């Protein structure tokens, strides 16, 4: 069972590496969003410091949805998805492995890039740490929730927009508690632990539920 998970995970990493660009695409999109914000809201350091965590989180949310529509579509097109249905291994496990590989190739680079981009938004040491910690804890939930949308729209040619529309409302709680925890890390007066614990809980709930929901959607093709 574990080995089947590792098999699918490594295969998807391998394919992503051969295609190339999946990490760069997300990070460049992340970078462009964060870069244009100071131009739009004005170069006021205090304002940027205050809204920085929110900007980073919104940018990470949008970047992590980028490319998520291809999560199952590529497999559906080349027939691999039919084979996953026929395998001994539950489809849920394959879904989970694919999500893990997708997170590693497209969301992990965002977490790594966040402190560098945080500097552009006037974030100090504690705030940077807060943003990295909340993104690391919260982005798995974004990928897993997005997987439900990706599974539901797998047969649609231009399913990307519909996928985002389906997934975005479900990611709102993650965004709220992610930003709350990241802002609390910057500001010593508000507690960090409570929103961060809820954020972790949201990720764990997604981990427990989303593979089943996505697999159920894939079975309905």
């Amino acid at each position: 069972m574990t080995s089947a998970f590792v098999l699918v995970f490594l295969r998807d990493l391998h394919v992503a590496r051969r295609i190339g660009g999946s990490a760069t695409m997300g990070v460049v999109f992340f970078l462009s969003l964060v870069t244009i914000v100071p131009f739009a809201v004005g170069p006021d350091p205090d304002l940027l410091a205050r809204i920085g965590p929110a900007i980073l989180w919104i940018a990470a949310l949008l970047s992590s949805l980028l490319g998520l529509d291809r999560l199952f579509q590529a497999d559906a097109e080349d027939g691999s998805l039919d084979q996953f249905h026929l395998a001994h291994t539950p489809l849920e496990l394959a879904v989970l492995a694919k999500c893990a590989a997708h997170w590693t190739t497209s969301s992990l680079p965002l977490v790594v890039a966040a402190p560098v981009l945080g500097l552009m938004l006037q974030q100090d040491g504690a705030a940077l740490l807060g943003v990295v910690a909340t993104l690391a804890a919260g982005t798995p939930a974004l990928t897993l929730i997005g997987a439900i949308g990706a599974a539901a729209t797998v047969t649609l040619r231009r399913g990307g927009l519909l996928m985002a529309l389906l997934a975005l409302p479900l990611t709102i709680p993650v965004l709220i508690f992610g930003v709350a925890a990241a802002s609390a890390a910057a500001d010593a007066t508000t507690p960090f632990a409570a929103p961060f614990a809820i954020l972790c809980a949201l990720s764990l709930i997604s981990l427990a539920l989303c593979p089943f929901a996505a697999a159920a959607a894939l079975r309905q093709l």
Partner: protein
Amino acid sequence: MREPVTTAARPHADMKPALRLRVESLCVERGGRRIITNASFGLAGGEALAVTGPNGAGKSTLLRALAGLLPIEAGTIVLEGAAESEVAPQAHYLAHADGLKAQLTVAENLEFWARYLALGDDARSLPIDAALDRLALGALADAPVAYLSAGQKRRAALARLLVAYRPLWLLDEPLTALDAASRGRFSEAMRDHCALGGVVVAATHEPLGLAGASFLALGKTPAESLS
């Protein structure tokens, strides 16, 4: 009729579990239309069935339903004598989409499916290089699938059936894009599979090269049956 399997290729050819695929009054609907009505047939281990019929007669639908990829409206599909009662994990399904990742090499693709689809350690599964040699793909083992021609991709997909033994082969137009020599090799692989006690169900417009295969003719197209 069937040639004995060479023991060098399959040293375990004498292992023949008594297998039986039984399909009774199977009805399948797709998009609100009944595509398959009361299809019934039985196949014992070692037998092959060629499903024929005009385009749109429901050949692909029948195979997808057998593989468990489509919900069935009524009827039963049972594989008796197999390791477990469920059909899907006992079946190989080969259709027009070949399940190969264009970015990976032929050997990497097969390695993945061999490990993912194999039912435990079955001695009837061929090693990857042996399977590739049987389909004359040995020289292309390290080529990315994106570089292969349609016929070569098809052969790589067929090799998947050899590297992970599963008793039931569900083949949708397996001979598409294959040249005469490859068709011969594939017919031989099917004969071997039958000799190992497996069952082959193939939807086809062309002769499969299987002596003793029975036929199931699917009738009218849905458009005709509506009128």
